[in-house]
């Protein structure tokens, strides 16, 4: 291949929107709103798995909650026909994520698993990603958080404890994904099987409203749920191409 052809090939490659031809895995979560009861098990599961700090009442009153997944609640109608709908909201791992482009130091970018990765030790805390995120799922460490002894012993050694001034968010429990991928690699280089890896929230969900898997595998549970006519994505008209697919309430 001569230089010109190489240049053209490189040019094409680097001019390709989204850059990746194919994700290794296209991790996707489906959330069945018809099943979600708002019980918040996922919230605590996430908090336990990901070393999410205890913020304290005063800080919560100032609006500095940290939980990576939250249950949003929307009332509809008035008494006696009032209804309350829940929707779990977590990082949507958008394939066209607005947060990624704005980070001046590339602390957040898209990895080959289709995950919206956040590199904590690269973050300088401009917080612009949180401004750009239409789903408001990025949380900022306003302080160094402390765990009174012996609470610090519950910290998950697979997940870093974030420093003050760092943005953080749902990672789809990337430590579990990594582990599953390593395991699959050791196991003869096979691919990760459907259901082999589950983020903490999916694992805990008592109504099995959350499903997690590889969208590229047509046999997977998520792929099947995504084919459901109830599937939609929140704020879809913003064209962020989220990896969280909601199933409509009936």
């Amino acid at each position, binding site marked *: 291949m001569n230089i010109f052809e190489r240049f053209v090939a490189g040019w094409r490659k*680097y*001019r*390709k*929107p*989204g850059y990746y031809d194919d994700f290794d895995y296209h991790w996707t979560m489906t959330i069945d709103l018809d099943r979600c009861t708002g019980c918040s098990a996922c919230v605590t599961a996430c908090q336990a798995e990901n070393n999410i700090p205890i913020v304290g009442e005063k800080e919560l009153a100032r609006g500095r909650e940290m939980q990576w997944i939250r249950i949003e609640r929307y009332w509809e109608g008035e008494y006696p026909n009032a209804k309350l709908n829940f929707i779990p909201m977590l990082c949507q791992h958008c394939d066209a994520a607005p947060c990624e482009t704005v*980070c001046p130091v590339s602390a957040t970018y*898209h990895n080959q698993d289709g995950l919206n990765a956040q590199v904590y030790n690269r973050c300088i805390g401009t917080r612009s990603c949180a401004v750009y995120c239409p789903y408001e799922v990025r949380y900022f460490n306003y302080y160094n958080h402390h765990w009174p002894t012996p609470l610090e012993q519950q910290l998950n050694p697979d997940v870093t404890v974030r420093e003050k001034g760092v943005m953080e968010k749902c990672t789809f429990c990337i430590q579990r994904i990594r582990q599953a991928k390593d395991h699959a690699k050791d196991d003869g280089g096979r691919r990760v099987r459907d259901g082999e890896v589950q983020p903490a929230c999916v694992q805990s969900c008592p109504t099995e409203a959350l499903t997690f898997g590889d969208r590229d595998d047509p046999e997977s549970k998520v792929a099947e749920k995504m084919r459901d006519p109830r599937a939609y994505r929140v704020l879809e008209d913003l064209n962020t191409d989220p990896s969280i697919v909601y199933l409509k309430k009936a």
Partner: protein
Amino acid sequence: MADHVVGLFDDAESALAAAGRIKASGIGQPELISPIPVHGADEVLGPKKSVIRRFTFFGGIIGGLSGFTLAAGTAVLYLHPTGGRPIITFPPFLIITYEMTILFGILATVLGFLISARFPALRDRVYVPEAAVDKFVVTIQCEGDASNQARMILGEMGAGDIRQWNEATP
């Protein structure tokens, strides 16, 4: 060595006229030192062309190229796909290009200015402190007869003060 005759005038017009006379007399190329830019000096002392414009132009072009190269090169060398955009994205990189064009243009202009005006001055040059206040000064590098001739012309043109300047006596 290099002796200069220096004539101090109260106003720009007489200074300019004196400079014109000296130039016409063929003693040498007179220099005008003034507290403000004297308009019309070109007509008297001959037109000037500066190289600054070339510096600015090529500085800008180099800046633009290096700006795009910086942005695109960084993106290609450190692959961080973001926001579903291509690795080489035009709209943002053109902004970087634009800013770098101007930055290099400015820096090159400064460089051009320094070079063409021969700054910073590392040696003593002919200078009269009053020129920074309100005197318009005509200087001419000459020795011997030429020097006398210059003094005469300057005196005729109404120089308030005529001095001799050489490197040893600043």
